[in-house]
């Protein structure tokens, strides 16, 4: 069966303007939340997510369909996030919104909230590629093939990044979470 996104791209290139709007509507929420997860600021996330679609629009003619449209879109959004973070010289954890750690559930105890906050911060402190691999892999549930395509590395490197990230997190969080108790 023909990929639905590729069909929309072809339709747009053949003159169906609504097809591009359909692509925006299909992915806007997903991309916004992904960017928000990376930059940690709602207004900036909105701005970057919208720019990602503008960049897609500019480059759509050059898209060779060698990867999924979705991973290409993520790649564009991620590059914009990286540029933004570089320019603002702010690490995401500096302005981490507590809501990103999902700690506004009233049923959670203070200890649970604190644990989540520590885990969130530990993730933010990982080296960039490891942190992004963890986010793409666990938060977005993407396959290693997709992760490697977005990050521009081999599938093996994506797996290794995830492995090393786990080792580091285990070391940092083992005691707090009681992970290493049998």
């Amino acid at each position, binding site marked *: 069966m023909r990929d639905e996104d590729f069909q929309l791209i072809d339709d747009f290139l053949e003159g169906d303007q609504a097809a591009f709007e359909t692509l925006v509507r299909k992915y806007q929420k997903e991309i*916004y939340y992904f960017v928000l997860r990376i930059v940690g600021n*709602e207004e900036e996330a909105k701005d970057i997510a919208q720019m990602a679609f503008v960049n897609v629009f500019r480059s759509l003619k050059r898209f060779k369909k060698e990867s999924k449209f979705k991973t290409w879109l993520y790649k564009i959004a991620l590059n914009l996030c990286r540029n933004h973070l570089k320019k603002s010289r702010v690490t995401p954890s500096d302005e981490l919104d507590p809501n990103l750690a*999902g700690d506004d559930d009233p049923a959670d105890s203070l200890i649970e909230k604190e644990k989540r906050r520590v885990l969130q911060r530990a993730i933010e402190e990982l080296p960039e590629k490891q942190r992004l691999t963890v986010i793409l892999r666990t*938060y977005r549930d993407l396959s290693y093939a997709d992760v490697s395509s977005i990050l521009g590395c081999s599938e093996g490197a994506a797996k290794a990044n995830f492995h090393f990230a786990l080792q580091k997190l285990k070391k940092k969080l083992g005691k707090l979470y009681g992970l290493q108790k049998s």
Partner: protein
Amino acid sequence: MDCKKAEALITQMNRSDLERGLDGPLAGHLDECVECRTSLELVKLLQDTLTEPRPKREPDWNDFTRQVEHRLIADAYYGNWRGRINLGGMMNRLFRPAFGMGLATAALILAFFVAGPSLYRSDSKIPTSGPASTSVNTVSLPATLISSPMEDRVSLHLDHLSREELSYVNRALLRRVAAQERLDGIRDDIPSLPGIAHPDEDVEEVDYRLTNLEPGELQRISHALEHMIPN
């Protein structure tokens, strides 16, 4: 099963695999290996923690789509010359008193030598406003489109856009302007514009419409654009 294989399986698991639970050799290995059990617990923990962020205010998704459209229009207009001219930087410099005075003096001298002779001709007028001139690749609109006091008119080069992009932007632009400005004549005609299968006709049609607008309507369009571009 050894730890290497076990971890490879654990790190391959996605959300639904984890929810389904474990069986077979991996489950057996985990019963005996604390290290691998820890890895599995950590992966589960990450999936529980890295859930969808909860922004303080959920964006209005219809508005989000509209803003993308606005940006595309703004990009079509600014995009071509933004890279070459840093208008913001120029204006900042202009507001420095010494630089501003110097520039103003130079501009006056230059204007005298360039425009001076034509002022003596009885049949010439300095263009200040009026209907826009258009061509297939350039649309010229009054300077109220941008906040530059330096130029009377601004030429909007659309060469860098593909035909499809140009057509998309033009239509989006006209539709939005017509809706905002209640230019009923244009709005009614937009659905009947030729299809994108004929981009030349489409572009010509848009140009034709721009040239046939009254100066007042053009002013309203340029105000609408001015309002849209900051978005």
